[in-house]
């Protein structure tokens, strides 16, 4: 018993500490070194950060070089499969292009309006500049979905920079090196994007599942009933992580028994990415010369207060004017409605009269009919002395009683 325990301890000790002739380090040393590196990499020291950036740069470039043969095979395979559907795709693209051209015009107008409105709200204008970046590593790991692009801090890329495939969102930058960056794709489990589902205008959060389908993670109860398969998902801009209004994908509703599952089919195919656009945002202050000049002239606090009060007064007057206009419009509406009510009342009165007349006519026709049959029995004559004078009420009653006098 004791000897078997000793054997176990000896075997374990030997496994950890024994160095073969060709080994420079024992495994225990390397394990401690690994743990030390794990701890060090979790702490954000400047020296460690720079070392990490240097390692990343070297490894990414080496990985790109090593991947060349595999990428060549992959591209050849894709190229051959593309040729088989070439003509069909061409026709489809032609149709889409003509449609997109018309959409682009209205989009430009909206963009211009948007810029103007932003200028009014903010004291700066954010001009975005999309730069083309090549994907140098895309290994499609089953665990983490990320790509490496050949643009880094040298090209003004920052952590959080939005990455696009054409105009569709594909992810955001999570690690920046000098000439390379790592992009976390929307399909990654760690990716959470606040979105708006249009046209229902429902707010939600989508997260990746590891494949080309996103999953709706959070959505307020009761809003899901209005959604359908035609709904479009785009970024809401909540949290200022992503810009608002960037298209992401289409909603796909999957019914599993009584429950509904909401997924998002991404517009972009992440496995086919070769080049992406990185949106570099540069904030520039608005040069408002008129305002600056007035500010220089009236720089005392009282003047500033007066200016604010004047502005407030202007706003109040504007609101008052608006209320007045609304009030007048409402009055007009009330008058119109009263007139309508009077007209309707007249109509009712006329219709009632008509109904009464119709009833009378019906009674008269009935009397005349019966008069033809029973009039001779009720009319006073030489042979019928018990009869009544024609036109009298007794005569009328006698006719309605079918000639009976009582």
């Amino acid at each position: 018993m004791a000897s078997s325990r000793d054997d176990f301890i000896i075997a374990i000790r030997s496994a950890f500490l024994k160095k073969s002739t060709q080994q420079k380090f024992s495994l225990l040393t390397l394990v401690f070194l690994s743990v030390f590196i794990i701890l060090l990499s979790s702490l954000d020291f400047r020296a460690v950060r720079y070392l990490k950036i240097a390692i990343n740069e070297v490894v990414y470039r080496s990985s790109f070089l090593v991947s060349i043969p595999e990428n060549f095979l992959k591209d050849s395979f894709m190229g051959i499969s593309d040729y088989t559907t070439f003509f069909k795709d061409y026709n489809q693209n032609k149709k889409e292009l003509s449609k997109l051209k018309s959409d682009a015009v209205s989009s430009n107008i909206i963009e211009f309006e948007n810029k103007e409105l932003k200028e009014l709200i903010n004291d700066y204008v954010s001009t975005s500049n999309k730069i083309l970046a090549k994907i140098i590593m895309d290994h499609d790991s089953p665990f983490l979905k990320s790509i490496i692009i050949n643009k880094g801090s040298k090209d003004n890329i920052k952590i959080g920079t939005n990455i696009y495939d054409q105009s569709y969102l594909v992810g955001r930058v999570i690690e920046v090196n000098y000439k390379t960056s790592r992009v976390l794709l929307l399909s990654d489990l760690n990716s959470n994007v606040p979105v708006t589902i249009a046209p229902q205008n429902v707010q939600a959060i989508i997260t990746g599942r590891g494949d080309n389908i996103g999953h709706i993670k959070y959505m307020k109860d009761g809003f899901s009933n209005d959604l359908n398969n035609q709904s479009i998902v785009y970024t809401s801009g909540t949290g200022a992580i992503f810009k608002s209004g960037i298209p992401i994908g289409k909603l796909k509703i999957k019914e599993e028994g009584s429950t509904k599952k909401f997924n998002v089919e991404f517009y972009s195919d992440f496995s086919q990415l070769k080049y992406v656009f990185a949106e570099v945002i540069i904030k520039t202050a608005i040069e408002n010369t008129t305002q600056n000049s007035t500010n220089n002239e009236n720089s005392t606090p009282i003047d500033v207060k007066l200016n604010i009060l004047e502005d407030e007064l202007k706003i109040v007057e504007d609101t008052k004017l608006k209320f007045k206009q609304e009030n007048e419009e409402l009055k007009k509406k009330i008058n119109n409605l009263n007139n309508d009510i009077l007209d309707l009342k007249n109509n009712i009165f006329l219709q009632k009269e008509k109904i009464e007349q119709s009833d009378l006519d019906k009674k008269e026709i009935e009397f005349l009919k019966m008069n033809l049959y029973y009039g001779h029995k009720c009319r006073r004559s030489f042979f019928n002395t018990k009869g009544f004078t024609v036109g009298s009420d007794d005569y009328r009653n006698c006719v309605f009683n079918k000639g009976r006098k009582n």
Partner: protein
Amino acid sequence: MASLSSRNPFRKLYSWLPIVLLFISVLNEFDFNYLNLDYFSFNFPFILIFFFSLKDFKHFDYFLVFLAGLVNDTVVGLPLGISSLSYCLICIATSYLRNITIRPHIIKDWFYFLFTISLINSISYSVLNLFFSYNLDLVNYVINNFFTFLFYLFFVYIFNHYLKGVND
């Protein structure tokens, strides 16, 4: 004549092939994932490290294995040191197995391999999830584990041929 052949650069490269292959696989993530086969993935470095450290191969330096781990972490985007720790733990497990085994048997090695990679993947998953708050799909880990286990025998067959070639 023998000394001439050992100085031959191709011969030298051939004897260093496992390490070269390890670095290529970690740099390239050699796992056929682009074939888009659902849930298919396997960990080639695990098989390679397990086999050659079990055989106590002459040119299989633990420090280089450790460096390969660092490279793998950089490529995959994991915190530095996680893969190095995993690779070193595989080396420890094989070293222990080598010490306690008198008559090696491939089936025993195979199931010991399953136990080792399951344990290491569990440690890796726990560390990433608990200490680094990574969201990882456990199903992917299990499937990766299973395929790595299945492919072990196939690669053992190839590696044995390689060892035969080197020894000859």
